[in-house]
């Protein structure tokens, strides 16, 4: 394979920086290209930690931020937009995405940036009111306002470009400066995002608030340590070591928002509409090739896995056509080959796509301890006496159900046992406004709430007189006001 070298810039407060005074980090992509990203330099840190980029954003009304993101999103939506075209080309050439997957990724970026109504709804449902970042909002006997925490550092995911964008957007709509530490697996998305901001307005406070930097996982160096020490929030995505590192490295008073490794699974009753059941499951398996935490890896199937296999094979084949998988590296292919060898040795039934694009293994749930991802579905028997709650733990993120109406009652058992999200099978990738992410409402972690409490003249619900504490003490009447 011919090796080409691609050198990416960093982005310092909205400005593309092609020099690399601290040198480059070099890695090899799945398509065999050499990829160079600049290492964070001290001079970058000086610029990033100046007050301006943080404070200018903090003073912007929320709607100006949302409008700006919308403008960027409208560009991303257009198939003529050069930044989108370059981005799609890089996902294909460098990261081995199929053209369909790369395009879908760009569309999802357009979707979140353009989704102004959804952003307002997320602000309102997570923080309590659409204008809470701009005004004092009455809440019971107080008025509440949300201020940005200040500086947010994002340890970026390498597996799901969309998540990288979500992380940045959450921080920006809460008016936090963003320092995106990109992953060597996908350094493209945050840079493309920053460049698309500059395309709208190079000096806009939102553009200036975004920096994209790099250091090798767990090794921030002196420059990175300054960034970490100056960060009021750290959003850490990725493997266990990445999220644990963030917690350890953070300032003791910094908020650390962890999106650590999770797995997801499905419960499927395919008795009545096997084609629909298969379509939903196939979608949740094929979308992002199971690299996302919400991707279904396993499915408990009624009436029997074997009966679902023909429809599922067809649905998976359909996805190979409408959303071809990305290039699989040596290691990913090897992991699946080993898994199939194991399954066959253990006597489990296996089905494979002719072109190797997917695999189905009918196995007991205990076998799920080895999962190679890459569109591999484990189907498990679902006997009548199985306790769904016993099949999940706090490590399980999304449980997908089919058919929805029939299986919705399962949610109580699985959520009590630790699951944070229950969806209809085929909808795993759609994070609806109002829903929680990994057990929390992340926007609540990005802000500092301040409150004004009503003065003494306002009586409480349980008292019919003004709160005159001195008089109560003088007259020894406090106890009267205890409900």
């Amino acid at each position, binding site marked *: 394979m011919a090796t080409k070298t691609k050198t990416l810039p960093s982005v310092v407060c909205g400005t593309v920086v092609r020099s690399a005074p601290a040198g480059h980090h070099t890695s090899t992509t*799945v398509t065999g290209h050499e990829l160079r990203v600049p290492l964070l330099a001290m001079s970058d840190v000086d610029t990033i930690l100046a007050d301006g980029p943080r404070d200018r954003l903090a003073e912007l009304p929320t709607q100006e931020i949302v409008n700006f993101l919308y403008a960027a999103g409208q560009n991303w939506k257009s198939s003529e937009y050069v930044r989108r075209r370059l981005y799609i080309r890089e996902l294909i050439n460098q990261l081995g995405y199929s053209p369909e997957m790369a395009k879908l990724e760009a569309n999802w970026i357009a979707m979140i940036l353009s989704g102004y109504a959804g952003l307002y709804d997320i602000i309102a449902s997570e923080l309590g009111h659409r204008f809470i970042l701009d005004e004092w909002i009455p809440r019971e006997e107080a008025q509440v306002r949300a201020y940005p925490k200040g500086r947010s550092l994002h340890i970026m*995911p*390498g*597996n*799901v470009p969309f*998540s990288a964008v979500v992380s940045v957007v959450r921080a920006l709509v809460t008016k936090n400066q963003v320092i995106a530490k990109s*992953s060597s*697996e996908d350094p493209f998305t945050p840079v493309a995002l920053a460049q698309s901001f500059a395309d709208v307005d190079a000096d806009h406070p939102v553009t200036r608030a975004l920096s994209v930097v790099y250091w090798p996982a*767990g090794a921030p160096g002196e420059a990175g340590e300054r960034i970490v020490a100056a960060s009021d929030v750290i959003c850490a*995505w*990725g*493997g*266990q*070591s990445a999220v644990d590192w963030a917690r350890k490295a953070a300032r003791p008073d910094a908020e650390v928002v962890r*999106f*650590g*490794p*999770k*797995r*997801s699974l499905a419960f499927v009753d395919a008795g009545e509409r096997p084609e629909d059941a298969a379509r939903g499951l196939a979608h949740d398996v094929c979308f992002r*090739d*199971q*690299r*996302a*935490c919400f*991707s279904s*890896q396993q499915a408990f199937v009624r009436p029997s896995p074997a009966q679902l296999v023909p429809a599922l094979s067809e649905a998976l084949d359909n996805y190979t056509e409408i959303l071809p998988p990305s290039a699989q*590296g*040596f*290691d*990913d*292919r*090897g*992991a*699946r*080959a*080993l*898994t199939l*060898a*194991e399954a*066959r*040795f*253990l*006597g489990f039934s296996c089905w494979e796509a002719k072109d*190797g694009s997917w695999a189905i293994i009918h196995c007991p749930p*205990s*076998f*799920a*301890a*080895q*999962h*190679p*991802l*890459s569109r591999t579905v484990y189907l498990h028997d679902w006997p009548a006496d199985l306790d769904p709650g016993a099949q999940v733990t706090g*490590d399980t993120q999304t449980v997908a159900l089919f058919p929805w109406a029939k299986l919705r009652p399962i949610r109580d058992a699985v959520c009590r046992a630790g699951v944070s999200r229950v969806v209809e099978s085929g909808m795993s990738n759609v994070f609806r406004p109002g829903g929680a992410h990994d057990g929390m409402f992340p926007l609540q972690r990005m802000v500092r709430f301040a409150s004004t409490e009503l003065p003494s003249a306002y009586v409480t619900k349980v008292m019919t007189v003004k709160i005159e504490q001195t008089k109560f003490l003088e007259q020894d009447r406090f106890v009267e006001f205890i409900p």
Partner: protein
Amino acid sequence: MSRATSIPQPAGADQPPNEAEAQSPSVRIIDARTAIDELIFAEDPWYALPLERQRELSDALIRQALREHLERCPSYRDYYARSGAAEPGAVALADIPLVSTRVFKFADLRSVEAHEVERWYRSSGTSGQPSRVPRDRASLERMVGSVHGSVGLLADWDEDEVAVINLGPGREHVEDVWFQYVMSLIEALYRSESRVPRDEAALDEIIGLAQSLLDDYEHLIVVGPPFHVLDLCEHMQRRGVELQAGEGATILTAGGWKRFGGRAIPKQEFRAVVARQFGLRGEGQVRDVFNQVELNTVLFECEAHEKHVPPWVHVAARDPETLQPVPEGEEGMLSYLDASCSAYPCFIVTEDVGVVRRGRCACGREGTRVDVLRRLESRAAKGCALKMGQIHANG
């Protein structure tokens, strides 16, 4: 052959030998010696054989082993049948159905009766779930024999003039009984001292010990996991100590090449540091040995830093999708067919990526060599999708 009777007890063994055997030690093996035992326990080293002879032996020994395991191991027999492979006499070695090493995490695989298992060896391996691998007396004796028969790849020392310092096991191997056992075999060849470099004081003591053994013996072997050796060298650096071993020492590494924190140690850099700190005449005195719990043979590095594979083991690098052998010199997933193992069908495909070479080595010997490059690391495992078996850092 009398060496065969001197099997060290497995370190920390919790199962006494079977009573019958305690009464007549090793009787079965000594009496029932086969072609493979003649090769393993031969006075003349296998690596002196011409390439063609090694090939012939390999083919014959592995086919014989295949026949025995098909006879004795029902689960492998079923697997073989399901795979549609040709019968043992006709199957190409490349087509012998392979057992993934991860199967040892799920299933008890054996070709001997339960009471014939001397011990189940555990390895923490690459993921949280440990592997369990059985060994019977014959497999263990052959393991010992292979160490004796291959150690000559390192050098030809007089037993009485060599002292060994065994660094380890560290905490990462404390529960890894197999690793300890293999280390003890190397240690058992010579006068040896065991020291765990767990803190600064222990490191200081090891330096002192090394100095005094260099003075007292013709040759010193320091054996241990790479990161322990590196810890020792870094400690010497801090203390400003540089030994003057010259030709009088060999540093032998065994075990994982990743440090805590997950970064791999570049081997060449490692050899340079070690050679400097010990004052070796050359980096050829820094050697590595390879083994894994599912493999019954220890592979030794020659002075050209190539790991030579004895004829009772067939090694291949395989395509990650088809598991068919890749052309010589290309990277593939490493598989081993090890005829020395009677306890279970040691026809394994591993999570290691490496390269296989055949022909004449730079050291002058003919034969097959394997270069173990890295662990398979699925790209997916780095993302937020939990790949359960890989929560723990790779070794």
